[in-house]
């Protein structure tokens, strides 16, 4: 029975982590890779088996499996219990597929990418640890275990961002990621406390069926819980105002950016919102907040992405922007569309990051696109696979990104949200910008003149790549995952072709048992409108492509000219709207000043230490006691004690008759 083996899916990578984490330092590299890759591969195999089991006719819609340790559940006190219990339903099945398969491909790629790095064993141990927690996250059957995975992936992310811990920027970025995520966790925790207070449990099925049974519960405390969950999701999925950690997270090795900061971990927020859709459906207000956050994040990140020079940062802002789309989808009640975009995004964004890694690898660690160019002949496999990724994310049919993005835009357009049309427009503009910045990246990297210097010397130590001399294509172990992901980026969207385009929307039907109660579309729209909107978004994507073509291929240099004509605006965007600086100056510095001067100086100095003994009526007497104690021997305390004890006993014996009655 599948339920009996469910726990193996997360625990296999955990075993890999334990072995590599404890012994990896002494093991040869091929063995380390085997220890890391085999469990991941087995988890993927288990997923395939699970897939066929659950797709079989008459299979249950979900499989449940509880685990006990030493015969105990996890937490058990009077009135509250939490178990290590795993559940697979269709939503989890989809997420499992993304995590295990993309995860395995990225493990494979890392074998080539990290081949020359110090701390090879450490890298794979952390990567397996990440897999474990991510699998726990999607398999969990209650909020608390989900939170375990949630925090655990954050930990793995912290460790991997700070992988090159000797570099201050990497250590800072890791810390920032963890702390900003903790702000999100603050909301998530409070949401859980409220859930316990209202439902007495954190079990998904219990909570959601309780909500379903009480149609009179609208808004109110459900809105509070939903909004707090949104805080958590905004932290993990890098949404306004907590997105600031993700661009910095690019300090980690590139496979990490692909796996954690593009394909899997950052989508946990979307997964969580989709998972709790029963709750969100009851709070139009919270859904509206989700939609607005999503749309605002999408367009703001796209703006910043258009002017970045670091290839990984462009992709990072692109990720933030695409996550905004998914948030927008959830916010208009189109959870299926959000999860669909999560799926296709996992394919093409992992591909883009890995391809960017291959470019960086070829250039011995160079990440600045101003020092690239003309690479298409030098690294053809990377070029062609990356092209697939760029076309896919730009939303040009029939590649994957088109279908999922178009579904989101369509659902925003027809949503009952009063500003649905505006959300659609923002999404549409973002689509054009996406196409522009991705093709900008494409043209700047692969076309035009070669602006890089050929390195023939060894790599800079501790840097995120390494050279063997000259610009070279990556080895097969790196290009193979690229090819597989390129294929998936092409065909991945075909599972969700809408009926208007002659498809069957298989993914919608597949997820229907889990996400069926989404906000219903009130406006009746014909296939004509849907087709029209699709055409509009394709045209917008092509405009973005054309603009990038003109600015960065046909007449390179004109872009810089435009930037010069609007210096203030350009600097504002290039410096990411100074959000980091604003946070630093408005929150962090004042808080530290407050702590140091007011708490440390006034409260601690005057109130706490002062009030202890100096103040008050007994001050003088105590002062003399202190002086006497200081001048004398410390051991005289024993004498004082004896004296006191004697007095006490005297009072006890004679006190009855004196005053104690």
């Amino acid at each position, binding site marked *: 029975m599948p339920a009996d083996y469910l726990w193996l899916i997360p625990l296999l990578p955990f075993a890999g982590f334990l072995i590599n984490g404890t012994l990896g330092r002494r093991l040869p590299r091929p063995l380390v890779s085997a220890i890391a890759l085999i469990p991941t591969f087995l988890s993927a195999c288990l997923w395939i088996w699970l897939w066929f089991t659950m797709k079989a006719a008459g299979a249950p819609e979900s499989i449940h499996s509880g685990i006990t340790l030493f015969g105990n559940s*996890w937490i*058990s*006190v*009077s*009135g509250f219990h939490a178990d290590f219990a795993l559940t697979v339903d269709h939503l989890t099945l989809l997420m499992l597929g993304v995590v295990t398969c993309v995860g395995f491909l990225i493990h494979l790629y890392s074998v080539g990418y990290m081949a020359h790095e110090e701390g090879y064993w450490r890298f794979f141990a952390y990567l397996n640890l990440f897999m474990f927690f991510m699998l726990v996250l999607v398999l969990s059957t209650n909020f608390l275990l989900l939170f375990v995975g949630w925090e655990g992936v954050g930990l793995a992310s912290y460790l991997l961002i700070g992988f090159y811990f*000797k570099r201050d920027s990497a250590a800072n970025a890791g810390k920032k990621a963890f702390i900003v995520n*903790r702000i999100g966790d*603050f909301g998530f925790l409070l949401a859980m406390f409220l859930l316990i207070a209202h439902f007495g449990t954190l079990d998904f099925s219990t909570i959601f069926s309780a909500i379903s049974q009480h149609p009179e519960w609208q808004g109110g405390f459900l809105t509070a819980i939903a909004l707090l969950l949104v805080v958590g999701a905004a932290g993990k999925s890098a949404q306004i105002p907590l997105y600031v950690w993700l661009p910095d997270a690019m300090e980690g090795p590139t496979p990490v950016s692909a796996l954690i900061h593009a394909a899997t971990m950052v989508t946990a927020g979307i997964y969580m919102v989709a998972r709790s859709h029963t709750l969100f459906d009851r709070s139009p207000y919270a859904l509206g907040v989700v939609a607005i956050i999503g749309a605002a994040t999408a367009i703001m990140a796209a703006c910043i992405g258009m002017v970045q020079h670091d290839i990984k940062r462009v992709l990072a802002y692109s990720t933030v922007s695409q996550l905004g789309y998914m948030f927008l989808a959830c916010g208009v009640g189109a959870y299926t569309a959000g999860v669909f975009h999560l799926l296709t995004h996992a394919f093409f964004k992992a591909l883009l990051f890995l391809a960017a890694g291959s470019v960086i690898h070829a250039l011995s660690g160079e990440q600045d696109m101003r020092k690239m160019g003309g690479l298409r002949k030098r690294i053809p496999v990377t070029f062609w696979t990356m092209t697939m990724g760029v076309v896919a994310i730009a939303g040009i049919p029939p590649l994957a990104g088109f279908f999922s993005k178009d579904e989101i835009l369509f659902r925003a357009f027809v949503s009952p949200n009063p500003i649905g049309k505006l959300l659609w427009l923002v999404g549409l503009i973002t689509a054009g910008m996406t196409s522009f910045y991705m093709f900008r990246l494409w043209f700047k990297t692969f076309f035009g003149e070669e602006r890089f210097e050929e390195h023939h010397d060894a790599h800079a130590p501790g840097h995120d790549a390494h050279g063997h001399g000259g610009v070279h294509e990556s080895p097969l172990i790196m290009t193979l995952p690229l090819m597989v992901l390129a294929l998936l980026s092409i065909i991945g969207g075909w599972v969700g072709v809408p009926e208007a385009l002659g498809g069957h929307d298989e993914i919608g039907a597949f997820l229907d048992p889990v996400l069926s109660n989404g906000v219903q579309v009130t406006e009746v729209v014909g296939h004509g409108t849907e087709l029209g909107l699709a055409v509009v978004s394709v045209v917008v994507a092509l405009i973005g492509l054309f603009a990038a073509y003109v600015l960065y291929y046909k007449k390179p240099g004109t872009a810089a000219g435009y930037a010069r004509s609007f210096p203030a605006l350009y600097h504002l965007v290039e410096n990411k709207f100074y959000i980091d600086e604003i946070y630093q100056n408005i929150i962090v510095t004042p808080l530290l000043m407050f702590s140091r001067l007011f*708490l440390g100086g006034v409260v601690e100095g005057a109130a706490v230490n002062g009030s202890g003994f100096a103040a008050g009526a007994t001050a003088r007497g105590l002062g003399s006691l202190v002086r006497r104690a200081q001048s004398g021997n410390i051991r005289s305390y024993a004498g004082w004690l004896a004296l006191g004890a004697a007095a006490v006993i005297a009072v*006890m014996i004679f006190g009855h008759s004196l005053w104690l009655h």
Partner: protein
Amino acid sequence: MNIDYSILTIITFVPLAGAVLLALLPDRGRIQQWGALLVTLITFVCTLHLPSHFDYTAPAGSFQFQENLSWIASPSIRYHVGVDGLSMWLVVLTGLLAPLGVLISWKAIDNRRKLFYILFLLQQVAMLGIFVSLDLFLYYAFWELSLVPMALLIATFGRTENRRRAAIKFFLYAFIPSAILLVGMLWLYARTGTFDYPQLAALAATHDISSSPTALWLASLAFLIAFLVKVPAFPLHGWLPDAVSEAPTAAVMVIAGKLGLYSILRFSFGIFPGQSHRIAPLMLALGAIGIIYGALMALVQKDLKRLAAYGTLGHVSVVILGIFAFTVSGIDGGIYQTLNEGIGGGALFMLLGLLYERYRTYDMREYGGLAARLPWIVTMFVLTSLSVTGLPMLNGFVGEFLVFSGTMQSTVANHTGWTVLATASVILTASYMLWMIQRVFYGDLSRRSAQIDAMDLTAREHLALWPLIALFLFMGIASPVWMRAIDIAGANIATTVNRSQAVTVNMDASTRNGPATPETALASTKGTR
């Protein structure tokens, strides 16, 4: 004869016998260390008898492994010891920390070893005695005893020339409230004619201690303030940073937390349930403020030990918050968090001590880039930080989660606001812990770390740290092993306090103009403080 009846006496007095033995042994070679290690190990093994023979089916509120002998006939003072779910694991924890403390002091204490280990063992006797005593007078004797060795340890083995001042500050902070505590106890005796805790608790449950609410109030405050200073709770923590930064590692590991917290749970709640409930709104506020205050202060420290001291203040405040919520989750979580504080704080102070032994400084600015040189220490340090930060699957999370969720369900005034404020500490705790890790271990090698070629963990240090690291993991994933006993006691405390509240509320309703409405109660608290 069944050992169950004397096991607590054995546990308590084996270290005392050990101290006498050490006094007779010469201070040569490593004799004192081995002697102390042997004694503490024997004590620890004895403490393990408790959980393995604990009767989980015993009725709530009853004590086990009791020994109850008459000591002094008049005034009626008995030698009455016993444990329940509240104290059992604290006894075991005290037993466990002692051998680890000896191991960690092995080389760090090189002068006057004999005095050190004798004081160390006496300190252990006092702590064990506090946890097992069920007679107030006996308890008070151990309570007073706990002050002296600690003060002497700080004064004699302190790190800088400030040690005497720190010791005196510690002693006075603890001693003066203790005197008031004694007055409270004597008043209780005068009213009831007994020092026996179970009898007093039974009288309290039936409101038979005193009919004067004011007197009860004052007595309950005498108890509570003494305990709060010992914990220490904000704003009575003035002694903590100085004492912590002076005291040797083995002493710091046990300086804060469990004694005071246990005493509140046992005596304040047991003898003064109604009064405890009345003061709960204030205590929730002090708990939540203490959590944030400790975290913010930790954030701006430059000295590693002071940072950890303020961190400790934050963590004991978590317990204060949880237990005064008077929900089962809050109290269970509070007791669990008391254990966690001992384990996590102990490990943290041990690691800081190890760094000090190698680099002779606690100044964070002098550190940097040690991760590549000391892979084991950094691993342990990160694990400890994660436990302290409350990462799920480690012990800290279980306690913290139960405390905060318990506070959220509380019926005490303003509990939601205080829960929200307290929960914000998850951000701040992560901030100061990660910041510390980064400054000590990441980035470039500092000048001092480059000059001193220190070695990674030795076998002895591994031995001292691994038990705690293992506990982080086990207590994080298999909490019911510990929680089973704790929950019995926690549920009982919650019931006792809430029941008393139900009755006193009714009394209030009938005597609306009586002197002990919550408002006047709070006012009188403020006046006293």
